């Protein structure tokens, strides 16, 4: 069966090609080679039995002499796996003969190949295009896209984590690229690859690695470190416990996939084509807004003219080049109707009249109908300051949500298209609970709120604490990795 958005992929490093690819990498040892041979054994597939993992991703061709031996060596594993209902996808990379690799994949019964660069036409087998995130062909003719340069999520060890009582730590997340992916390639599945860091992660680290992409509707191509795989091969209990947590997290998202059809909600929209020079400011804005606790949605520029701006109070148009006439007209109409439109410095012939503003702001303000046009002052402004100014100008007065006591956490909010249901995803990048549980302010309390999390035996009904100035707060229990607040009106 062809891999689909329902597939749950796992990297299955095994075989002579894998050994050849890694033998010059620091840390490679005879034990590593032995492990890579051991995972060729069909018996090793027992590991994924009873788990949601249903697609194993193997090295297939790299243009090395070991390619043919690899394909031969994998045959028993593939045959046994297919009998057990598993799909296999082969990675074709480097200087591999792509046509030959595809033909071999078809012959071997692979469900798909994962291929760098543009997929060939009429391959005869599903090809999952795979690329670094800034260069991915989002409109490629494939229901699945592969991002090869995902980040191991967490608080990076080489950056000052605490700094004192008044600091928010930096976090590495794949949320930005995955939100962009949903905007640029709606309906497509995304596989994102990243390997464990050199220091073997904890079980919670692996759980976060699953949850970070899964909460945004994507899939991590599960990739275990050698030590863990070795211990799993040796059936050591701590390793099995870790693996069960990884599989449990993946299963959790399968059980809660109804929210995948929800749409990001917020008062702010970020519009960009996220292409070429617009990639960095666009991705960085989407990356940083969660650290400011600003719920937002991403709209692909190509779809913006037809998109609904209902519910928005502000739009940040990121791209250096001005929008197409139809979109510009729509954006200006949005501002004239009372919204705030943020545009870069190169916006030609700004509409409206100059309006007073705080001098430090990176935007010049212009009154425009009932709303405002904010024009960037600098050609290459600091992105954090830019989004902080946007938040400041838009104002906290109408915040839909606020999150407290969660310095190492990000959240994002999604709502059903029909209304009535919503979910707040909460990810803890420190992978350990804080001293206090997270606390949400919700502007419009709903009928019910419950917390679901793989860390809870059963969903926890949350109590609304009405606030004197309006809205209500929800106090959550402490969360190590992931939880979701399901709201229903």
């Amino acid at each position, binding site marked *: 069966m062809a891999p689909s958005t329902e597939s749950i992929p796992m990297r299955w490093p095994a075989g002579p090609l894998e050994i050849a690819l890694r033998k010059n990498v620091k840390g490679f040892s005879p034990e590593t080679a032995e492990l890579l041979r051991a995972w060729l054994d069909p018996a090793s597939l027992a590991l994924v039995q009873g788990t949601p993992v249903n697609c194993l991703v193997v090295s297939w061709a790299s243009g090395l002499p070991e390619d043919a031996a690899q394909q031969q060596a994998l045959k028993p594993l593939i045959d046994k796996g297919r009998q057990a209902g598993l799909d296999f996808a082969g990675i074709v990379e480097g200087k591999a003969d792509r046509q030959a690799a595809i033909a071999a994949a078809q012959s071997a019964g692979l469900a798909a190949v994962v291929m760098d660069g543009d997929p060939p036409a009429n391959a005869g087998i599903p090809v999952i295009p795979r690329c670094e995130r800034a260069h991915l062909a989002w409109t490629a003719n494939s229901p699945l896209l592969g991002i090869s340069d995902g980040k191991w999520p967490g608080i990076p060890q080489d950056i000052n984590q605490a700094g004192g009582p008044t600091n928010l730590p930096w976090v590495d997340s794949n949320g930005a690229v995955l939100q962009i992916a949903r905007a640029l390639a709606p309906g497509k599945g995304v596989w994102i690859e990243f390997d464990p860091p050199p220091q073997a992660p904890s079980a919670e680290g692996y759980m976060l690695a699953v949850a970070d992409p899964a909460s945004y509707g994507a899939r991590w191509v599960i990739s275990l470190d050698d030590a863990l795989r070795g211990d799993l091969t040796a059936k050591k209990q701590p390793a099995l416990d870790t693996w069960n947590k990884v599989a449990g997290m993946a299963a959790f998202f399968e059980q809660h996939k109804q929210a995948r059809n929800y749409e990001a909600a917020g008062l702010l929209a970020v519009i960009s084509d996220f292409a070429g020079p617009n990639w960095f400011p666009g991705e960085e804005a989407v990356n940083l807004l969660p650290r400011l606790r600003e719920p937002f949605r991403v709209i692909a520029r190509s779809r913006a003219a037809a998109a609904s701006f209902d519910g928005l109070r502000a739009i940040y148009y990121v791209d250096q080049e001005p929008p197409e006439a139809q979109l510009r007209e729509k954006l200006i109409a949005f501002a004239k109707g009372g919204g705030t439109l943020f545009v870069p410095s190169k916006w030609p012939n700004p509409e409206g009249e100059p309006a007073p503003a705080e001098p430090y702001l990176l935007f010049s303000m212009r009154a425009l109908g009932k709303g405002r046009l904010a024009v960037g002052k600098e050609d290459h402004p600091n992105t954090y300051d830019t989004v902080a100014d946007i938040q400041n100008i838009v104002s906290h007065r109408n915040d839909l949500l606020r999150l407290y006591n969660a310095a190492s956490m990000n959240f994002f909010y999604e709502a059903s298209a029909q209304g009535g249901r919503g979910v707040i995803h909460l990810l803890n990048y420190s992978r350990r609970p804080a001293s*206090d549980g997270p606390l949400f302010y919700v502007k419009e309390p709903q009928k019910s709120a419950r917390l679901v999390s793989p860390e809870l035996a059963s969903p926890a009904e949350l109590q609304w604490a009405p606030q004197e100035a309006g809205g209500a707060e929800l106090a959550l229990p402490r969360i190590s990795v992931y939880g979701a607040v399901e709201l229903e009106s």
Partner: protein
Amino acid sequence: MKRDLTRREMLVASGALLALPALPAWSAAPTGPTARVAVAKCKTYGPELLPALETMFDQMGGLDRLVKGKTVAVKINLIGVRWQRLGTARMEDTFWTNPRVIAGVVHLMGKAGARRIRVVEGPWSTPETLEEVMLSMNWQPQDILSAADNVEFENTNYLGRGKKYSRFMVPGGGLIYPGYDLNHSYEDCDVFVSLAKLKEHAATGVTLSMKNVYGATPITIYGEGAGVDEPSIRPHGGRGGTFHFARRMPSKSAPQQKDMSLPKDAGYRIPRIVAELCTARPVHLAIIDGVKTATGAETNYGSPNRPQAAVNPGVLIAGTNCVATDAVAMAVMGFDPMADRGTAPFANSDSMVRLGEDLGIGLRDLSRNEIAGAPISEVVFSYSAVRDRLLAAAKKS
């Protein structure tokens, strides 16, 4: 408005007269102005708040005498990352000056004839307006803005609405810095008010009306992201790198550290910086909100050895001298205002009230100040006892 009490009446009223030491013992004591400090019981921020504040101001001789026809700057305390609360307790009930106290003080100042009242603060690492910071905490800033005529806010982390920074030199030359460059609001005012919270501090033992002035320093000059030569346009980072640990110097446009060999220890530096700031930019009225607050530290910065709790001491303290007011506040917290380094609350720092006294701001000896209103013995709320209880409970669990 009540008439001014004489010093003797004040002492009798407070029961402090009996506690006065024999006069000759003062001969070798530090010199400085004696001051009036009023203490009020106030369990809630409800209807009892405004009368309590009004009574205190009356006991101090009347607010009109201080603010009538004057421009007043009220430095409030909005410390720390606002998204980090102490459990479910609200910031205004733990670490921040409560908005009802702010509104109450503003209202009474307006009533007393203040010409203009500017509420000022440099909230952590942001150029946002104070309205925005308040809105993000679900406050209603309009309640403060409408509490009197001509009320305005200014974020003093940066230049703000001014055209240049105002320089305040430390009389006598200073201990760490000879002077400070501050937002224009601190010069524009005729009357400077420190409206603080009754709190402990992780580095300096306590943070009261004196320490509150520390937050007046602009991050554009004294922050970790400050400009090297000139102030930055935008504030970035906290003040720790410059003030706590001297990892970097202020922008060169501002007065520089006098002696680079001085210790780089927060417990040495911050009390001195606070004391000299309070001499460079004198506090005319110190008010401390101890109705609801937190123990353990100035913000959510607890640790196993420094557990924190939201508490309800139910007390307000106000005085015209920040050293005397903080000394009274320390006594209310169960600490000895005469304590110095090595003794609680100054386990790891020098005493900023002693340093303030050394600089001639005021006197920390309670018996040498005039204390009105509720006797301290009736309002003592021991922070150490809370800590001991928390530690014992943690040990048990």
